[in-house]
């Protein structure tokens, strides 16, 4: 059976060029980059190169990049680091209701430690405005953390505007850009971003590696103690093959980024346009235009997401859902609920995230298969009276 992978927001396929770049560092080039001898320095040079590649992709300086295990660690390091270091200045943090759990759970932890967190509500598209951030700001606000683009519904937040506001008010600004890096143009200087989290496997790099950009001048305590690696900012021997692979992958992702984005947008918009013509009573989740070029998210009313995913999988299509049954909890996605969806409609969400390898044929196949699945499941649903 032909298999179509439309879950690129969960993870992506490793680029062959990235694997090729990594291979020597898993075999013959094995030194510890902290060692002063030839073996170590050979590897230290590879880390330098990867640091330049990652910094170059977001217009940062190489010294502003800290390699770590992934986006979750980057979010934890940034938020907990600012909270700890600037607690004397204030204990108030502003974030949004639709962040990834790496941010939300970290904020909850800080609340238990006596910090105050404002969770900005979002509109029906999952968007916050710069005015909401401005109104939430207090004298004791030390950090604003707003995701660059939402992982579930793809909505792109007004990052440059929030960045400008934070810079003007001298409040640190962190963005979880895990879904945006390698998909949207990012310039940390022009956008006034102080800290930015990224994850290698979301842009065709390897898993288990990510980076935190921290603007020069901001000193964060390390989350992980135990060594002088990453200039005392993250202890532990570096994941060298992972870092090298991420460096190559980000370079590839940013090469022709806009063209690849336009190509995906055409296919994305075909799905967004044609699904409602073939399936009555479905609702687009997320912003119609301010959304990631590869994200499609629809709620199919009267049916449940996990059933849709299982049926799609049986037809060779891999997708994802915000239903409770796929999250391991009883509640559906906090993002969809924050956007005002009822539980029932949130349970029926299906997310399809494309890659630049997705073809029009793939999309046509989805357009053929998904309406039949919706009809079949609606036929068994006591909620459907059509």
């Amino acid at each position, binding site marked *: 059976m032909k298999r179509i992978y439309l879950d690129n927001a969960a993870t992506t396929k490793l680029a062959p060029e990235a694997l090729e770049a990594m291979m020597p560092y898993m075999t013959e080039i094995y030194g510890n980059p902290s060692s002063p001898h030839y073996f170590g320095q050979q590897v230290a040079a590879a880390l330098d190169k990867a640091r330049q590649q990652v910094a170059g992709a977001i217009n940062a300086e190489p010294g502003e990049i800290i390699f770590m295990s992934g986006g979750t660690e980057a979010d934890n390091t940034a938020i907990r680091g600012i909270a700890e270091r600037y607690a004397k200045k204030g204990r108030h943090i502003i974030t949004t209701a639709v962040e990834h759990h790496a941010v939300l759970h970290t904020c909850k932890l800080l609340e238990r430690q006596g910090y105050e967190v404002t969770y900005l509500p979002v509109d029906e598209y999952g968007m916050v405005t710069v005015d909401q951030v401005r109104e939430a700001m207090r004298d004791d606000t030390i950090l604003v953390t707003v995701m660059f683009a939402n992982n579930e519904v793809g909505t792109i937040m007004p990052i440059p505007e929030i960045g400008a506001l934070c810079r003007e008010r001298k409040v640190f600004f962190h963005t979880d850009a895990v879904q945006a890096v390698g998909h949207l143009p990012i310039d940390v200087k022009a956008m006034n971003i102080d800290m930015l989290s990224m994850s290698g496997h979301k842009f065709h790099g390897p898993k288990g590696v990510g980076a935190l950009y921290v603007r020069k001048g901001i000193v964060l305590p390390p989350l992980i103690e135990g060594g002088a690696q990453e200039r005392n900012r993250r202890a532990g021997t570096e994941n060298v093959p992972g870092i090298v692979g991420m460096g190559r992958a980000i370079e590839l992702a940013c090469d022709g980024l806009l063209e690849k984005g336009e190509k995906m947008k055409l296919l994305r918009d075909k799905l967004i346009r044609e699904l409602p013509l073939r399936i009555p009573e479905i609702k687009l989740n997320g912003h119609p235009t301010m959304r990631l070029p590869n994200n499609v998210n629809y709620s199919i009313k*009267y*049916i*449940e*997401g*996990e*059933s849709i995913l*299982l049926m799609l999988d*049986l037809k060779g299509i891999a997708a994802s859902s915000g*239903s*409770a*049954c796929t999250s*391991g909890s*009883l509640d*559906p996605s906090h993002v969809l609920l924050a956007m005002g969806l*009822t*539980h*029932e409609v949130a*349970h029926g969400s299906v997310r399809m995230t494309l890659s630049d390898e997705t073809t029009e044929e793939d999309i046509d196949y989805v357009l053929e298969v998904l309406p039949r699945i919706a009809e079949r499941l609606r*036929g*068994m*649903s*006591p*909620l459907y009276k059509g």
Partner: protein
Amino acid sequence: MYTEKVLDHFQHPRNQKEVENYNGMGMVGNAKCGDIMQMFIRVNDDGIIEDVGFKTFGCGAAIATSSMATEMIKGKSVDEALKLSNAAVVEALEGLPPVKIHCSVLAEEAVKAAVDDYHKRMEEKAGGAESGKPADEPEVNGSAEA
């Protein structure tokens, strides 16, 4: 994550229908939690469930447990149907992931709700006849149901 048996019942649900002239119907669960099961039974004069059907809004496990439960009570007496336990449904499906056990509980509850509804209808019918008052439903429908 799911056994082959679960996937089989999910892909080929048994008795997925609204039973004609049913005389017992139960609906359990709620949309908030993401599972709603509706169970229809038609019980004959001997108290045997001669036809059964279900409609379910829910995940793969919810559909599979509904389907299995209908198979397990079809042709049985209503008293036997009341003895159907969620554990028996899970066993018949050769296991469910721990987070999906509540689906089997829902299937058990749906069967019980349908049987309770059947008993209620029978009592109403009998009560209506004893007191000499006309039953809520015209006699023609009542006899058609029985």
